[in-house]
């Protein structure tokens, strides 16, 4: 089955710096990946996704990189702001008949 790990369960960055959150996955057949942001007391929100035919996708201040060779994703947040403080999860889309697996997430704290 799928297992999802997250490097560095906590990450502290200075406001204005760039943040990089990493995620490893185990199923080499995974072909679609989603990043979620969960603020305190709220449900996870979709941030950005990427398919396995891409190695990079950019959104507004966020970029996701996918390295299928080593089964690793990263979420980069440019010019980190206080509003970016949250827990971030990556979720590989599950194979048919299976359900999403979520790791514990990485808590991003933005320091003033």
């Amino acid at each position, binding site marked *: 089955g799928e297992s999802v790990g997250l490097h560095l369960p906590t990450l502290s960055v200075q406001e204005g710096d760039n943040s990089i959150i990493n995620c490893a996955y185990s199923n080499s057949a995974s072909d*679609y990946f989603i990043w979620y942001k969960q603020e305190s007391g709220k*449900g996870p929100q979709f941030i950005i996704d990427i398919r396995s035919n891409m190695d990079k996708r950019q959104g507004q201040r966020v970029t996701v990189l996918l390295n299928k060779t080593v089964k690793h994703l990263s979420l980069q947040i440019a010019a980190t702001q206080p509003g970016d403080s949250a827990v971030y999860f990556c979720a590989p889309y599950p194979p048919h008949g299976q359900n999403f697996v979520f790791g514990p997430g990485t808590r991003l704290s933005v320091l003033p």
Partner: protein
Amino acid sequence: SQTIHQWPATLVQPVGSPLSLECTVEGTSNPNLYWYRQAAGRGLQLLFYSVGIGQISSEVPQNLSASRPQDRQFILSSKKLLLSDSGFYLCACLGSQETQYFGPGTRLLVL
């Protein structure tokens, strides 16, 4: 786009009391629906999922049950709450798009 409603937002219940949490979905039809529980500082634990009306699958043995009386309604219940049922309960939906969307959650405290 899909919208997921959950209520109540917060609930404090005594041990041994019943529970009913409701989730409704707008903007999609025939979605897969999910109930997750999240302990403080932890990941999401899948409790139940449903691929259609009346179809419920349970991921872990527990004190809770789920029902899906309508296509876009998913209910989480318990006859007698335990202290260990405290947590943050999230309803999620997987519709026509390949993305799972989450509701705002219900924080349950059992005393």
